[in-house]
Every structure is written in structure tokens, then in C-alpha cells.
């Protein structure tokens, strides 16, 4: 199939054209996947074999290397979705719709992972799987918002119309992200306060910080890879839907 582009388009609109996107994004996938795999190998080696056990928590501290990056991504993905929602509302760009739609299930998965690993970690250290503490409650609310967005996408048949409506809801739901971020400072309940991203520098020992940062990057690149694949799939799904509609009208595709 040919992709029609007029010669006068800027590099930016060429880059963001759905047909062009499928072409230029293809060579990125394999390197990203390899980079993600390498980061995970290094990160897991550090996390399990080459980092000390905590003097208080023992080996359970290693759950952190999965828990903290997943929790970080649960907020980061919502941030990406919010930016995409602005792209949909302000520029009505189809690739912003696609990126917003691809991110929602991924964000839901990372949030569920953060809640699950947090609960596994909470049992041995705090003696409970679940506590109605500020950070946990707001993260649970975030999971519900993600799932609501996924359900909302599925409730529409027309994806262009869905995108604009979902974008409005995404922006409304964005108020929860700062609440999660600052919940540990506002309600000092069970969850420990921020210890890595602090204005006065991290309060975590360097031997633990190194594997944590590698895992941060591993998870983030994992997300970027999945996001790119999901966006390519979505563009192709929409193209198939268009071709099917054309075929149903009896036009030559």
C-alpha cells in the first residue's frame, strides 16, 4: 500500500503521520528490546546477587527493585497519557489518540504490579497485606481510573470520537497523580516517605541505589518498547477497520 504525503510537510508532521510512524518506528523496536533485556539482566544480577540485604528487612528488601520502578511507572504512564490527551484536545492529532489508547492498559498493569509487590513486601515488614494508608489508597484509586479509561475506550465504536471524550476524562483524572506523589508527606501513615527523589538527595545507601537505578531504566525502557509496539498495532488495527469499511461499501481498497 502506498502512503501519500505531500512534499511540503514539515519533518514533525511527517514523523507523526500514522503511516510514516509505522515505517520509521520499525527499526527502533529490536534495539529497544535488546537494550531492555540487557538492562534487566544487569539490574536483576545486581538486585539478587550483588547487593547487600538490608540490616532490618533482610532479603525482603529486594522486592523494592520491582516495586519502586513499577510504582514510578504507574505515575509516569499517567503523565504520558495526560500529555497525549492534551495533544488530542489541542491539536486533534491522531497519533496522540493512539498513544493515549496504547498507554492505558500498560499503566493499569504497572499499577497492579506495584500494588501486588507492595502487598507482598508489606506482609513480612509491616505484618499486613493491606492497610488503608494514603499512598496505597491513592494508588488503588489510580488503578480504578486506569481500568475505567480502558472500559471507556471499549464502550465507543467510533475511535476518533472516543479519543476526544477519553482525553477529557484523562485530564480530569490527572488530579490524582500529585495526590499520590505527595500522599506520603501529607498523611504520614504506614508507607515510608520519599527516599529517592528528594530535594536534599536520596537517603538510600549507594549499594542499594545502583541496582535500583538500573531497574528504573530497565522498567522505563520496557514500557517504551511496549508502548511503541502497542501504538504500531493500534495504527494497523485502525487501517484494517478502514479497509473493511471500504470493502463493505464495495470500493476497491
Amino acid at each position: 500500500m502506498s502512503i501519500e504525503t505531500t512534499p511540503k510537510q514539515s519533518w514533525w508532521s511527517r514523523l507523526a503521520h500514522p503511516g510514516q510512524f509505522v515505517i520509521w518506528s520499525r527499526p527502533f523496536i529490536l534495539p529497544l528490546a535488546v537494550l531492555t533485556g540487557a538492562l534487566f539482566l544487569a539490574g536483576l544480577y545486581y538486585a539478587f546477587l550483588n547487593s547487600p540485604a538490608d540490616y532490618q528487612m533482610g532479603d525482603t528488601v529486594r522486592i523494592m527493585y520491582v516495586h519502586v520502578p513499577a510504582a514510578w511507572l504507574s505515575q509516569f504512564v499517567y503523565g504520558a497519557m495526560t500529555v497525549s490527551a492534551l495533544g488530542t484536545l489541542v491539536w486533534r492529532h491522531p497519533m496522540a489518540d493512539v498513544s493515549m489508547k496504547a498507554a492505558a492498559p500498560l499503566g493499569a498493569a504497572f499499577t497492579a504490579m506495584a500494588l501486588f509487590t507492595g502487598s507482598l513486601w508489606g506482609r513480612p515488614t509491616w505484618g499486613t497485606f493491606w492497610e488503608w494508608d494514603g499512598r496505597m489508597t491513592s494508588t488503588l484509586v489510580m488503578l480504578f481510573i486506569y481500568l475505567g479509561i480502558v472500559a471507556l475506550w471499549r464502550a465507543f465504536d467510533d475511535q476518533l470520537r472516543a479519543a476526544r471524550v477519553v482525553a477529557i476524562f484523562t485530564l480530569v483524572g490527572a488530579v490524582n497523580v500529585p495526590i499520590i506523589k505527595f500522599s506520603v508527606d501529607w498523611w504520614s501513615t504506614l508507607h515510608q516517605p520519599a527516599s529517592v527523589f528528594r530535594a536534599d538527595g536520596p537517603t538510600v545507601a549507594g549499594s542499594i541505589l545502583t541496582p535500583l537505578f538500573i531497574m528504573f531504566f530497565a522498567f522505563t525502557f520496557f514500557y517504551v518498547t511496549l508502548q511503541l509496539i502497542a501504538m504500531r498495532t493500534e495504527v494497523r488495527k485502525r487501517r484494517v477497520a478502514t479497509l473493511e469499511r471500504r470493502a463493505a461499501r464495495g470500493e476497491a481498497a
Partner: protein
Amino acid sequence: MTGFTAVLRREIRLSLSGGGEVLTLLLFFVIVGAIVPFAVGPDKELLARISPGIVWIAAFLSMLLGLDRLFRPDLEDGTLALYRLADLPLSAMVGAKVIAHWLTAALPLIIASPFLAMLLAMDGPTLTRTILSLLVGTPALAAFGAIGAAITAATRRGGLIAPILIAPLCVPVLIFGVGAISSQGGPDQAGAALLLLAALSLMAIALSPFAAALAIDWGED
């Protein structure tokens, strides 16, 4: 302003007459509240302790139940298309609907809450605080609800999805609503919760007509 009051009047007249939705929601509110003692047991002390939460949950659920009638009937019979062509801005129309929704879905519940309080063995001072916190907090529920109803109006399965979308957004309203009643943290903390609840309500009322109007405008064309 005449268009605004015309919409407001029409909404109130529609929900008072015909299907009698006001009565249905009121009945639902009382039944949800009355069914809790069957589930947790008729221990009066326990009921008195959890009664503010029960009243808030019952009010929250019955307001969610009334959401689907907010925009969908107007969308189906074409009234919404007329509203979009009218001189009155769409956001003002939504504002009138939110006010009408509060008057017909929330106010009757607040008036009926002493009856529920009696069933739940709630004492007098708590009842006063409950009514106050419902008065301050339910506008936020109506405003958030309008956003959810507007977003899902154009979908076929919207009636089920709106409550799922709206419930997480209403969590702070419930927290501060019940916090304003409870006397555990002392009067200062209850007063602070009431102020935060008022802030939530004011913010929600100020923003929701625009978000909901945008969703209606873009949801169907």
C-alpha cells in the same frame, strides 16, 4: 438568564412528574441504608458508630443511580441537538442540569436522612453534622456525576460505565464527608474536613459544566 431558568424548570418538572424518579431514588436511598443492619447485625452501638458512613454510601449510590437520566434521554429524543443550536452556551445548560440534578436527587435524600438516622440509632448531634456535611458535599457528587454522564452519554453501554468512572473521583468527597461528621479527631479536625469538602464542592461545580459541555460537544457529531 431566561434560557437557563427554562432548562432548570424543565428538568425539575420532568423528574417530579411522569416516571417519578425522585421517589425511586429516595426509596433506593432508604432501602440501602435499611439493609445494612441486616448485613452487619442489629447491634445498636455498632450501627451508631458506622451510621455516618452508611448514610454517605447510600446517598452516593442513589446519586449514581440517577446519573443515566441526566443526558441520555435528551440525546435520544434530540433535545440535546436543539440545546447545542440554542443561544444558551452548552456549559450553562449543563450548569442548569447539575443544579436540577442536585435539587431532585440530593435534596430529597438530605430531607429523608433523619428517618434513616432513626433506623441506624444515630444520635442528635451526629445527625445535625451529617445533614451539614451532606449539604456541603453532595454538590460535588452532582458535579462529578455530570462529567461522567456527559462522557458516557454517547455510548450504548454508558449507563454502566459512568459509575465506574466517577466512583474513584468521588473518593475524596467521601473521605472528607465522613471526616466532617466524625468526632474522633476533635472539633478542629471535623471543621477542617468540612472546609476541604466545601472547597471540593466549589471546585467541582466551577469546572464540571465546562468539562461536561466539552464532552457532549465532542462525543456526538
